[in-house]
């Protein structure tokens, strides 16, 4: 049984399929059709809903997610807010009103999703902090084919400057109390239909027990990738063990130049946590998928998924991150650079769960992380590169470089690194190293880029590190 709040009403679900998504549940089970399906793959945002979650300190956090790739079972102990909830007593919500006044809808199909993304943004940010840049981040996963976005941005700016857009403290207290009392009664969620199972344990003890009893279960945390098996490939997954509610996997801390990030920490949480200590990574993460996926997708998920084009691994390999992996008889430490062994293959031990990632921030080194893709927002890298140099008196003393999109795994450029050490950090100094990239990698051609482009860009990005070291020569450069 799972239990959650839909808007302000308790929902208790027993007889539903564990692979039912929130979107399918809303539209086909309870006839709430305000939330739309645009792609069923988490790439368009038409299905955006808001989920309120109690954090460790019992505060409510509101996040926009794609309901098309989120299992309804994962809602256990949370509050689901849909577009039907916003207008109260016949009065439009401030976000809705601003959207109407700014002519921000045309066909209207993407509109509920935009409304919910803006609504979520206004719950989490003070109005002073909301800039055009923040709005772009918040709406990076909402596609509109009609308006061209300008009126939507204007509406968001207006809503942000209008008081009363946030949920009242009174309502929050009410929701918090409801969720807290529920959490005590029913900490762990579980669904069973026919032979299908879904578990949502709240702590590591329970997690271990379930995993021991069901070693054949699929592990998910955000589930943004595994859900595609259901919505795109139409497979049913017999057993799902959802790690997202396990409190021990949600920890985040830092000491002595190392960040300790729990495996189920979302990309967005990592992004805001490393804003000041590791701004280069925070900047890269702005372009990681889109807001909704960053709210759900987790750091362990992006690693365990072992995609050759995941955006976190190159940076983390360059930073020399290590994984803490829980195994049945204890813990293991695995350097991330050793973790990937082949296409979608890793060193993750049997019954192993990535519980924590330790990321050295290397405060004194010169770090540059670049993502190259067709589109700025929400795209998959053609090439993702990470450079971590220590430079003294104009010479490279040490270098760690990793690339994504250049091989079947995210991989270090070892020969290139060797060729750099001892060289002056200048365009001519790095020239031999640029040649070495051709020895380090033999990339492939696919729909994202040709092998030739990948290789040349990989070489040129090394030049970019030099240009940027000496002067700002990025696209933001301007003549005025």
């Amino acid at each position, binding site marked *: 049984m799972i239990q959650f709040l839909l808007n302000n009403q308790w929902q208790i679900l027993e007889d539903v399929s564990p692979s039912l998504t929130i979107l399918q549940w809303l539209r086909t089970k309870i006839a709430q059709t305000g939330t739309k399906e645009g792609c069923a793959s988490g790439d368009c945002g038409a299905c955006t809903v808001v989920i309120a979650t109690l954090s460790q300190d019992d505060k409510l956090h509101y996040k926009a997610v794609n309901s098309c790739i989120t299992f309804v079972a994962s809602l256990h102990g949370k509050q689901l807010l849909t577009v039907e909830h916003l207008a109260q007593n016949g009065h439009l919500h401030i976000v809705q009103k601003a959207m109407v006044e700014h002519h921000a809808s045309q066909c209207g199909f993407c509109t509920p999703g935009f409304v919910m993304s803006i609504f979520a943004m206004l719950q989490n940010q003070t109005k002073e902090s909301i800039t055009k840049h923040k709005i772009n981040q918040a*709406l990076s996963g909402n596609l509109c084919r009609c308006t061209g*976005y300008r009126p939507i941005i204007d509406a968001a700016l207006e809503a942000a400057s209008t008081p009363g857009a946030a949920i009242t403290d009174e309502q929050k207290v009410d929701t918090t109390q409801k969720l807290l009392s529920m959490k005590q009664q029913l900490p762990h969620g579980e669904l069973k239909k026919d032979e299908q199972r879904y578990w949502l344990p709240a702590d590591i003890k329970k997690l271990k027990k379930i995993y021991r009893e069901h070693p054949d279960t699929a592990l998910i945390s955000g589930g943004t990738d595994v859900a595609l098996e259901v919505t795109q490939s139409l497979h049913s997954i017999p057993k799902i063990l959802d790690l997202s509610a396990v409190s021990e996997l949600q920890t985040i801390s830092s000491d002595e130049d190392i960040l300790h990030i729990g495996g189920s920490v979302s990309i967005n949480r990592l992004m805001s946590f490393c804003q000041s200590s590791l701004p280069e990574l925070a900047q890269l993460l702005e372009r990681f998928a889109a807001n909704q996926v960053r709210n759900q997708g987790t750091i362990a998920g992006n690693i365990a998924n072992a995609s050759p084009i995941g955006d976190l691994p190159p940076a983390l390999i360059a930073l020399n991150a290590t994984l803490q992996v829980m195994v049945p008889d204890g813990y293991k430490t695995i350097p991330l650079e050793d973790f990937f062994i082949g296409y979608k293959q890793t060193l993750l031990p049997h019954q192993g769960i990535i519980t924590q990632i330790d990321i050295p921030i290397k405060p004194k080194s010169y770090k540059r992380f670049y993502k190259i893709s067709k589109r700025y927002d929400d795209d998959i890298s053609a090439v993702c590169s990470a450079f971590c140099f220590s430079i003294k008196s104009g010479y490279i003393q040490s270098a760690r470089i990793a690339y994504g999109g250049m091989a079947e795994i995210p991989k270090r450029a070892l020969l290139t690194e060797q060729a750099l050490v001892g060289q002056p950090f200048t365009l001519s100094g790095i020239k031999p190293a640029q040649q070495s990239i051709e020895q380090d990698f033999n990339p492939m051609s696919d729909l994202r880029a040709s092998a030739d482009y990948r290789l040349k860009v990989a070489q040129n*990005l090394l030049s970019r590190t030099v240009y940027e070291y000496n002067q700002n020569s990025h696209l933001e450069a301007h003549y005025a």
Partner: protein
Amino acid sequence: MRSLPPLSSQSPKTKYVGSSHQHESAIGHVTGEARYVDDLPEPRDLLHAAIGYSQIACGQISSIDFKEVEQSKGVIGILTVKDIPGHIDIGPVFAGDPLLTDHDIRYFGQPIFVVAATSELAARQAVRKAQINYKPAPPILTEKEALSAQTFVLPDHCLQRGDLKTHHTKPPFTLEGEQYIGGQEHFYLEGQVAMAIPDEPGTMTVYSSSQHPSEVQKVVAEVLGWPLHSITVDMRRMGGGFGGKESQAAPWACMAALLAQRYQRPVKLRLSRQDDMIMTGKRHPFYNQYRVSFTPQGVLLSADIELNGNCGHSPDLSDGIVDRAMFHADNSYYIENVKILGRRCMTNRVSNTAFRGFGGPQGMLVIEQIIDDIARITGIDPLDIRKRNLYGVLDRNITPYHQTLEENWLPELITQLEQESNYRARRTLITQFNHQSPTVKIGLALTPVKFGISFTSQHLNQAGALIHIYTDGSVLLNHGGTEMGQGLHTKVCQIVAQTLQIDTSQIKISATRTDKVPNTSPTAASSGTDLNGQAANLAALELKKRLSQCLADEKRVDIAQIRFDKGQIYWNETESISFAELAQLAYFKRVSLSATGFYKTPKIYYDRENAKGHPFLYFAYGAAVSEVSIDTLTGEYKVNRVDILHDVGSSINPALDIGQIEGGFMQGLGWLTTEELCWDNQGKLATTGPATYKIPAISDLPEILNISLFNRPATSETIYRSKAVGEPPFMLAISVWSALRDAISSISNYKFSPQLDVPATPERVFQAIEQIEKNMQKEPYHDKVE
């Protein structure tokens, strides 16, 4: 004759037309209450359908085994081509589009069978279980392959004026080249969907997300073998259309209707995004070639242009699309001696179809490339080359299809935009910047748009409307146009409100239905308001006349005394009754409160045999200045600033018009930059969803976007002197592509013009940079930039 009453002289007639009314469904959009076909309450016993389609692009089916499909959970039955009682071919203009096939395969994704099941998932899972074997044949996939194999869906067409032979002199004042233009997926957020509900025996209602309900009605009737009056198509709103639901909304409606008839149960068929992208046609890719000659000052003397449109496997709407490409290959420029040949290439791809601009953009791009290239050869700023070649106002104003431009506002419009955007000063600063910037280069371009308004098929230029007034004074308005987000219903409502002088809140527009207004044209060619606005206005005028007569009779005054103003109807200077009171009076006096309106566009014709005529009632004009930055290390770019000045005549609704301009511009930007359709060498689409096919997202919005309306009443007798706005702004985005080429050209100090095929992805920009660098090594200039 009659003096205005004091009240009225202080407050002139309320302006319903010309003000920025919100979209009639805006509140429904933001609350999620606006219903689309898939949101309708599902009727009892609803079945869901899914389509099994071909996994090869060309060849034949050698065997089909449905055993596992039949046994799949929830399956009710399977529909094949043999089960179609009526027509099998549903081609909209020409034959060539069989609804289902059991033998010949002409493209990857061709429908073979349809499954009806008790749930959507059951239907979709079942279709994947069919065992179909094929005898594949090598497919023809590109325009070039079709040209060498000489496969065409329809014969060529050619426009010609003047004499080409006299002018092709020698270099440097001749130029030849080519360009490849990719297709574009519509990516309407609401995918294709239809629901068919059997009514009384021999009748059916079909809910279809379609720009052309009358066509859906016709083909559904035909596949069932029924007369048209048996089918009613209902279309309240689409979640976007853009041309993709003009002809290609029909197959799904036919399939749903066939199953509904067979099982006497309602059937819904909604394509998944992936199936939608695989099974529906896109914007036509084009391969264009040209040879031109020009004076040392860069004025075009002659142009010999070949446009080769990739139509896919069947004609669909391609004849009109390639024609429109030809009609726009001159864009805004006078060419004294010109030949434009348009070929309709047949390939083994899904049949390409209408998409905002309808071939116009693909035609315009060729001349804009030519103009930029002439600028590089002559060393003259591209804007000056453009201005020198513009159509004249009084002379040099005959198009390649021999229509004389009666109203040419472009010279004025461009001058205004040039000044407002500060083009010249920015050009100087940008050139300086590019000299000293090592990796980032900035490009700037102004490009114009002249877009012909009217369907090029004369008979489509007609529209009908139906208005009922009820006894409480509320008005129900219906017309043949469909609402896909463009705000058509809002504008037509404003037009009727203006004529009847009642508030728009008193007027409700109901779903577009074939049983209300029959034999309608598609809502396409930007013509929605032009045609349906006129028809609705005529119906409103008829009712106004009847009401006026009724009141005049009652008050024993001359009908000329009757005056409608702000919900009141005056029979003398001071005395009036409300609109509702008059409606009641008319009812008691037995005056019909229902009227139809019918409109046909005057003046237009086209003599295809001689390629001469007056295909367009008028032209819509516009221009844009775009500035981009490119990173020469990676080919990445961003759009810094865009200034647009666009002509909508007298705007009926400025907010909606600006919405069409910026939305159209952004869609054009996507076509030209990030939207890349990739196919494998066997003709299978690789980009089947938004994960791999990238329409513009929010960060692609130019940093600065200034849009102004060129507010001048249309010379033609259009509705309230407005002009069509749906498609023309799409082509304003060509300025971004031209600016990208400008930025790349700056590497050679503007000596070379880069080949930049469309879409200009970062990789293509990078390749163009490499090409320019190679050219410079071959032919170095002493003033080469470091």
